[in-house]
């Protein structure tokens, strides 16, 4: 190769490198646009897919009776000794369900949220305890699934509850958390222990030992 042709080849390579460098910002921007467009298409497609299990459509939960005072574990619970308000709405199967104070049974209402990690930790323990221990005579366990949020973890709540083996009759709270508000619930999980005559015996906030749960059920048994 002559000196002239070498010089020409080098010039050509420099020119190509220059062109590549000048094209680079365009390529970077084009790459970003492609990534964003693909992500947007996939995101919309995923958001429009229907989940296999759907949360039952809920009308507003209807409250009968005076709501309980807001629940603050740091002060004396003024709800103790007060009548439990009734809640009417739909259950996990979409059929009407009422949590009433006047069905003649003592009860524990377990307030759970699918997006609360404490509830996620507590639920299997409760399910296991309920499977291994018969309820005291005249005592029932019911649930209130609240803070339901389609963007949250473990949505829909009924899939989570059923998946964990929770079979207690459970009311699905509405979009404004009417049920939780009527119980004065400020935290989940929550437990409301009610005597057979519909009076609140105790309220407990947070995860509890299933053995304590069992003892409290014994305490409210008629």
């Amino acid at each position: 190769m002559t000196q002239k042709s070498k010089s020409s080849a080098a010039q050509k390579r420099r020119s190509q490198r220059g062109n590549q460098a000048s094209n680079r910002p365009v390529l970077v921007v084009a790459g970003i646009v492609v990534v964003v467009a693909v992500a947007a298409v996939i995101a919309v497609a995923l958001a429009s897919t229907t989940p296999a299990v759907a949360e039952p459509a809920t009308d507003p939960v209807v409250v009968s009776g005076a709501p309980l005072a807001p629940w603050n574990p740091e002060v004396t619970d003024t709800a103790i000794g007060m009548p439990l308000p009734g809640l009417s709405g739909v259950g996990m199967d979409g059929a009407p369900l009422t949590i009433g104070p006047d069905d003649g049974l003592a009860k524990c209402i377990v307030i759970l949220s699918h997006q609360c990690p404490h509830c996620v930790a507590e639920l299997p323990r409760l399910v296991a305890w309920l499977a291994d221990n018969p309820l005291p005579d005249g005592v029932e366990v019911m649930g209130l699934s609240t803070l339901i949020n389609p963007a949250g973890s473990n949505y829909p709540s009924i899939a989570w509850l059923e998946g964990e083996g929770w079979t207690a009759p459970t009311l699905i709270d509405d979009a404004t958390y009417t049920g939780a508000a009527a119980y004065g619930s400020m935290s989940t999980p929550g437990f409301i222990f009610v005597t057979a005559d519909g009076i609140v015996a105790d309220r407990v906030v947070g995860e509890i030992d299933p053995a304590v749960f069992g003892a409290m059920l014994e305490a409210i048994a008629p």
Partner: protein
Amino acid sequence: MGLLAVANFLALLVVGAGLASIALIGLRVLASLSATAAGWLEIVRRAIGPYALWLASLVAATSMAGSLYFSEIGGLVPCAYCWYQRIAMYPLAVILLIAAVRRDWGIRPYVTAIAAIGAVIAAYHALLQRLPGLPSGSCSVTVPCSTIDLERFGFITIPVMALVGFVTVLVLLWIVADGDERPGS
């Protein structure tokens, strides 16, 4: 697009950014052991290194826009730790844009300090959501930090998004732009 579509969109970007960051960190480690890996890292640096400030600015701006969408349009109320992460992320969106326009690589120490603090808070927040027993035994109904009020693909929550955002900014500034874009160059 509704909340779920936007969340999916941001989650997909997070997956991409996270995988890219992990790959680049791995490549950086391998580059100290292998000439081949060092060659690949050099190719990456030459290709996108000059734009690292712009890309970091884009990451911070997208994170800021996403968090504002979630709170102002999506109705997800930010908890205390969300606010601490915002305090770190929002200034990054501004100062990285200014630095990109001015090609001011001297910004790196300041961005690093802010992004590192943000990453630590985001990591703790993400941990709190998975190990909720750390601070308490319940989720407040009002604005709990442990509640997972947004989760996509089974693991991407808002603090995870923030964590990936902070780490991506750090990777862009310290690994991708570690060649010709040194401070003072």
